[in-house]
């Protein structure tokens, strides 16, 4: 009886509440989120989530053809189709007396076909004519003259007057207005309404935005990873040797790197890219040059402090050669801080690459690339939000994943940070 009471007291006492829970009450919401990383093993979650994301993105980047529904360089639908919207159908309107008439009958280059300027009808017509030309016998070429009209009424009037042979319009636009023109008829449907739309819509030249994003992943990963790897492979050894050797070599190299570092990043990349010219290799080089000083500075600084550590001296007192000291003692103690830089750099490089392409210094213009898509989409930002939203989202997502992975991994892997 006494004992159970004691137990009850124990469980209800403050000692039973874990320390971190008490601490949690003292801090604000934002800090609580940050602290949660430690308490709940949040780093593992960060790593898991970002790793899954990155693995998916990398698979997409390696095998875009598995995921992309369309060819990213081919126009596959009407332009500027909103996400999820199905392509509208179009009707061919002809004078009543022409009877049962098809597009093929009025697609000669002597024929005139009208449509409302700025509507998707022109594209529908072009597609139909292209289809006709493909199945046409040798030597026959369909190329009807196009007539653009400001309003529907203008077009229908000129059709009724016999100035043109046909008029293409969507059912929605046509509405009931055909009732006013008794001499006109709906001859046939030029294009059926599409059954399936485009998940992320289409861009201004009718390419599928989703497919372009998926193929763009490949470019982004190639440029981001290889430029980060190149600058890692150059910057880290340079920093190690420079910090370890010291002397005039170190001073000259530091001066060089600092002068590189003092340039605003994107401007330097633009300068290099402009000198080297377009092409993916040149982009990689220009971005890599940009990040070499980052690695160099971090690694050199760390090397300077690590080489003065007692364990390096202890290693020397055991007769370890300087190569071994560099590889086994200094490098492993320097690398944790570089890993963060690396993953953040991959994200940053993707961003820079997008920036370069955005400014037109990057890749050939038909390349499916996020930066190019963003650059082109900005002209249509008021009409078509999806052109810049999705590529922008992808850039954000990939950059975020890389930084998250790097930072959390370094938090976990660094044995010095492990709690005892």
């Amino acid at each position, binding site marked *: 009886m006494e004992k159970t009471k004691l137990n009850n007291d124990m469980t209800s006492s403050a000692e039973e509440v874990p320390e971190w829970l008490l601490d949690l009450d003292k801090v604000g919401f934002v800090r609580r989120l940050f602290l949660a990383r430690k308490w709940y093993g949040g780093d593992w979650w960060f790593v898991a989530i970002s790793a899954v994301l990155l693995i998916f993105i990398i698979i997409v980047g390696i095998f875009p053809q598995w995921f992309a529904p369309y060819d990213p360089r081919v126009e596959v639908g009407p332009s500027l189709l909103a996400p999820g919207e199905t392509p509208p159908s179009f009707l061919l309107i002809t004078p009543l007396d022409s009877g049962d008439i098809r597009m093929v009958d009025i697609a000669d280059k002597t024929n005139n076909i009208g449509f409302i300027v700025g509507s998707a009808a022109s594209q529908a017509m072009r597609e139909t004519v292209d289809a006709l030309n493909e199945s046409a016998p040798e030597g026959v070429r369909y190329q009807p003259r196009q007539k653009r009209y400001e309003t529907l009424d203008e077009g229908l009037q000129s059709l009724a007057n016999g100035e043109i042979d046909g008029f293409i319009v969507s059912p929605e636009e046509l509405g009931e207005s055909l009732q006013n023109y008794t001499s006109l008829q709906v001859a046939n449907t030029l294009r059926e309404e599409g059954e399936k739309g485009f998940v992320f819509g289409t861009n201004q030249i009718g390419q599928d935005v989703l497919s372009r994003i998926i193929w763009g992943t490949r470019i982004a990963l190639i440029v981001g990873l290889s430029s980060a790897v190149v600058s890692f492979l150059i910057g880290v050894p340079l920093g190690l040797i420079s910090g370890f050797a010291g002397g005039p070599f170190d001073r000259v190299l530091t001066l060089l790197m600092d002068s590189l570092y003092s340039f605003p990043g994107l401007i330097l990349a633009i300068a290099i890219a402009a000198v080297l010219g377009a092409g993916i290799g040149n982009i990689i080089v220009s971005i890599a040059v940009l990040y070499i000083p980052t690695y160099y500075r971090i690694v050199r600084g760390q090397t300077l402090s690590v080489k003065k550590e*007692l*364990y390096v001296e*202890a290693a020397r007192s055991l*007769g*370890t050669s300087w190569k*071994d000291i560099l590889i*086994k003692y200094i490098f492993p103690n320097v690398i944790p801080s570089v890993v963060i830089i690396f993953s953040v750099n991959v994200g940053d490089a993707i961003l820079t690459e997008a920036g370069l392409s955005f400014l037109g210094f990057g890749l050939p213009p038909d390349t499916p690339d996020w930066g190019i898509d963003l650059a082109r989409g900005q002209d249509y930002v008021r009409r078509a939000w999806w052109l810049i939203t999705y590529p922008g989202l992808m850039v954000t997502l990939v950059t975020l994943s890389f930084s998250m992975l790097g930072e959390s991994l370094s938090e976990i892997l660094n044995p010095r940070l492990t709690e005892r």
Partner: protein
Amino acid sequence: MSNTQELMKIQDLSVEYKTRLGQVSAVDHVSFDIYKGEILGLVGESGCGKSTMGKALMRMIQPPGKITNGQIIFDGKDIMTYDQNQMRSFRGNKVSMIFQDPMTSLNPVQRVDEHVIEAIQVHEPKTKTDAALGRAEILIQKLGIQKRRMNSYPHQLSGGMRQRVMVGLGLVLNANLIIADEATTSLDVIVEAKLADQLRDVREEFGVSLLVITHNIALVAELSDRVAVMYAGHIVEIGDVEPIFDDPLHPYTKGLLDSIPTIKLNEKEELYKMPGEPPNLTHPPSGCRFHPRCPFAMPICSNQEPTLKEISPGRLVKCWLFSEHAEKADTNTEVSS
């Protein structure tokens, strides 16, 4: 110590540091011997050149320091003439070092076994990892570290354990001389006593010589066979532990021993404080470097430097009080009172 076979003979060794204020002679023309299988304590105030001496014995003085003079003869060969490669195989193989701070003297990203294996393979590159591991395990267990600790990182070990690992690193290559540079200073007294015991066991078992550099005189009294007292870059007295502690000859040694706090001290008796400060070694005092602080200073002390003179077998003192000189007749100093 009956065994007086020399392991290392230091002759006329000088180490200087270049500073903006001028040359600092941290070790100034020092000569002494280290015998096989002995524990030699090297005591002195902070900044008197003890650690510099320890490093100099392995030629590990880094710029701006430099060994400017002298010979270090080990097994009949002068290691000052060794080139880089010979020096590398000398370090660790023949002489190894235990450092002051066990917290930072092991590579934080290497496990204990990796440390030991590396130490073995640096000098015996042909040794298979398994064989090296086997050797390491036996040794580490002898030093009282559990086998499962082999997989631990340094930060998972206690300070005493780390020092034992460092001792192990020195022993695994059968080094003949282990230099313990303030190895016990940062440990608490109990761990320190344990490590001292272990160092003695190690000496007994492996027959290595130990040079224990410390300012802890009690430890030296407990641990050492012989003791060398250093002051301002000079060795002022050297000899077997007991005679020196029972009857210190050099005034500095006396002062040093009187400065040790003891529990017996009552309130009336104050702890002896040596007057003055250790000299600035950029401009060391002329003559005997201790004369400005010496209660028995004579005119000659400020003019001429005394030599390290053998008073009795194995007992050397560097003081005019025990040397023949012109003014000897004039002085009436009572030597050992």
